[in-house]
């Protein structure tokens, strides 16, 4: 197995804006809908798991589950 380090978020970044980010109920929903575990629900709201960002399949189920504009998906290769 390779000993070199793993890089996070090379291609995709996901941001959750306030106040949605602190919404505990939303956090649970986001954690449930994402098929690649990018979101982790905590008791203070949503946490992003950096190691999973590049696995984003652009399904946008998170965007659909959250209030309009709350979740943004950034494609770093489009800059």
């Amino acid at each position: 197995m390779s000993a070199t380090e793993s890089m996070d978020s090379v291609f995709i970044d996901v941001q959750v804006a306030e106040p949605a980010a602190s919404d505990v109920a939303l956090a649970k929903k986001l954690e449930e809908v994402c098929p690649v575990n990018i979101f982790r629900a905590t008791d203070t709201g949503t946490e992003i798991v950096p190691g999973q960002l590049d696995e984003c399949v652009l399904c946008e189920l998170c965007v659909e589950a959250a209030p309009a504009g709350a979740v943004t998906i950034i494609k770093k290769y489009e800059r």
Partner: protein
Amino acid sequence: MSILLDKETTFIVQGITGREAINLTRECLDYGSKVVGGVTPGRKGREVHGVPVFDTVAQAVENHGGPIDGSVVTVPPGFTKDAVIEAIANGIKLLVIVTERIPRGDVAEMVEFADMHGARIIGPNCLGLIVPEVCKMGGIGGPAKDAAKSYEPGVVGVMSRSGGMTTEISSSLTAAGLGVSTAVSIGGDAIIGSTYAELMPYFEADEETEAIVIYTEPGGRMEAQLAEWKTENNSRLPIVAFMAGKFMDDEEMQGMSFGHAGTIVEGKEDSATEKIKRLEEAGITVVERIDEIPAAVKERIAK
């Protein structure tokens, strides 16, 4: 204009909340397929791209208000058999099993059960089937706009053990102006629900289909079975076959051994070269380079 599917075909997706199923459900809907429900035990009440999710196939059928024609099964290998039998027990007649690595005994059980109930299984370990501009069951062809590039309605029936090669070959036929009547990714496992020979009668009965292209590899007896079928039936359909994996005939690339008695049943495992000979003897054209397929088809149709 098609085998097995038409504009009215309805189907469910079993295992719909999984990563791959979410993807292919979107694709099938965009393609115009009638995905009328999904089943993931425990997830009743959810929706995937607008498709209602149920706990059981029976609930999906009830919700639909009548029999459902098919199911695309993406349930993990430890649970696939149970899901398929549930589907058949609830009246579903066409099963496309995408899942791979299902134990062979389970596959054999599903196939026998399907036989007993007049159901047909495509797969497992397959990408499904597609009738261009009519219906797509499974991930074959990918998202709708990609599938449209590879699959235009036409005269060639395509059958392939390799999911990827189904689309690769179909794309070249589309580019050559021949088009595809129906393309079937039949699956890569040792035991599958529908072999080339078993699907030939469907193509034979389809007015739109004028020729058949198969993709084949070393291993197994499916090609020999097709050669036998062709010889025994007065088929109107010319068949062109492309065979990959000839490098495996070389040196120490020897794959699995079947054990002594295996060869009694299977016959001496045909090497790629032996298979080619067997196919040609049955009047099947075999091409060596993949880009030679369209020309070979045109030539055979012209005869």
